[in-house]
Structure formats: structure tokens, C-alpha cells
């Protein structure tokens, strides 16, 4: 046929993981980790995004290579935008 059918148990497992990670994100926000609060929050958000992209959006299961190329390209260009912009602004001396 077309796309492989993902078992319900996988979908439910991902859903529960996403909910738990959301709770963790909110909870950790109240713990003082200094500058690492932001890092932890963004790392958890990225893990959640990866779960959604790979499993819910079927990128892990697709045989269509071009889809993966498009996804990686989009992320690359976003990283370029954010990376270079921040590299500029955060390395300036503000009087």
C-alpha cells in the first residue's frame, strides 16, 4: 500500500512520553539551574519535536527520501538563521 500502519501502542507510548516531558518542563522551570534552565527546556522541547516529527508525522517510516531531505534542509536553514544572528548579537559589546 502506501505508508506503513503504525501500531496504536506506539502512538500511545509517544503521546504519554510527550505529556510526561511537558510536566517535566514545567516542573524543572521552578528549580534553580542558573543558565541551564533555558538549555534544559529547549532540549526537552527538541526531544518532543523529534518524537512528533519522526513518529506522528511518519518521517521515521517513510520510504520517500526526499521528505527527509526537505525536513533536514528546513532545520539547517533555521539553524543558520538563528545561529548566525545570535552569533552576531551576543558577541557585541553594548555600551
Amino acid at each position, binding site marked *: *500500500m*502506501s*505508508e506503513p*500502519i*503504525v501500531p*496504536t501502542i506506539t*502512538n*500511545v507510548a*509517544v*503521546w504519554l512520553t*510527550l*505529556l510526561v516531558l*511537558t*510536566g517535566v*518542563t*514545567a516542573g524543572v*522551570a*521552578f*528549580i*534553580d539551574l542558573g543558565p541551564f*534552565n*533555558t538549555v534544559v*527546556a*529547549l532540549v*526537552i*522541547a527538541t526531544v*518532543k*519535536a523529534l518524537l*512528533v*516529527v519522526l513518529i*506522528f*508525522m511518519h518521517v521515521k517510516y*517513510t520510504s*520517500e527520501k*526526499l*521528505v527527509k531531505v*526537505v*525536513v533536514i*534542509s*528546513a*532545520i539547517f*536553514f*533555521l539553524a543558520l*538563521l*538563528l545561529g548566525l*544572528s*545570535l552569533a552576531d*548579537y*551576543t558577541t557585541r559589546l*553594548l555600551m
Partner: protein
Amino acid sequence: MADRPIAVEQHNPALKHHFVDMEQQREASSLGMWLFLATEIMFFGGMFCAYLIYRYWYFPDFAAASSSLDITLGTANTAVLICSSLTVVMAVRAAQLGKRQQQVVYLALTLVLGLAFLGIKGIEWTSKFKEHHIPGPTFNFEASLPGHPDQPVDQHHAQLFFSLYFAMTGMHALHMIIGVAIFTYLLYRAWKGAYTPEYHTPLENSGLYWHFVDIVWIYLFPLLYLIDRKK
């Protein structure tokens, strides 16, 4: 001139003639949606970039403004969207298995959750309106910097945070509204039995759109609501 029967290949009525078969059509359609999502990533990416730069410059003011957002409602909304992504995935699965009834149930649940998200958003924005946190002539943000009760928050920087907050959550909410409209149409079509194991492309691609909007919120939530909640 005798009439000779013309051989006509039987094909799925949904197959457009410039495609070889359903599989190729489905793949092309999916790729098209992914390319659109790539443009959406750049669209939201620009706003995230602006947000990150201003947050870097005015961190304490941004932290104070962020703390005035309702973390319970924000977390609840995140959970609502995650649940809606599950119902979308299950709806697509139901179509793959040819289960019309299940499709309808899951699509209806998705709609309910999507509307719940918008409702909660409305509640949040209403309270922002009442507290005079909406940028403009009535803007007034009374607070001191976190950890420094004697230093007031800079009004301009706080207003900047809320401009970004309303721009980003507003644009996200607009995408949600469009998603709700699309899924209302899908619900109707699914109920009519339009989506089969051989053809459920609109369902799949709309699902991709919905998941994308979910991912945008997954990043918006920690960045807007959880800047600095330690104090």
C-alpha cells in the same frame, strides 16, 4: 466503420492522470505539504529569531513579563495540543484501516481539542487585556525585576515582550483556526466515506499541518512562559 471497444484501464477515481499510480500521487502530494511546512518553519523562525535577540538584550524585563503569564493554562494548552496530535494520528490510522466510524470519532475529538485550545487562549488574552498588558496606549506593566524588589521593570522592554507574545501566539492561534476549519471539512468528508485505505491523502497532509502547529507551540511554551520561574 464498426465500433471497437476501447480498452480503459480501471483506476481509482481519485487518481489524477498526470500520475502513474496512486502511490506516486500520494508521495508527490506529501512532498508538496512538507515543502509548504518548510516555508512555515522559516516564517515562524523569523519571529523566533527576533524574540531570541530581544530576550538576550532585555532578559530581566522579559523574565518579569513572562512570569505574569498563567503557567497552568499554558501547560494545560500544551497538553491539549499533544492530545489532539494523538487523535489526528489515530484518525489517519483509522483511514488506513478503512474504519469510517473511527475516523469520524477521532476527527471530532481533534476538533474539540483544537477549540479547547483556542478557548483557553481566549481566556489568557482576556486576562492580559484586563491587566493592561496589551501593547498600545493603555499598556502598563507594574512589576519589579525578579530578585530586585526595588528596581522597576522597564516599560518599553516589557511592552516589547508582550508585542512578541501576542504576535507569536496570535500567529499560532491563526494557524489553529485555519486548522480547525480544515478539520471541520475533513470531518464532513470522512463522515461521507470519502477516505479509504487507497486514498486518504487530504487526511494525511492535514495531519502533517496539525502536527507542525503543535511543534510550534511545543517551542513557544517554554520560551514564552518559562523564562525565569525560579523566584
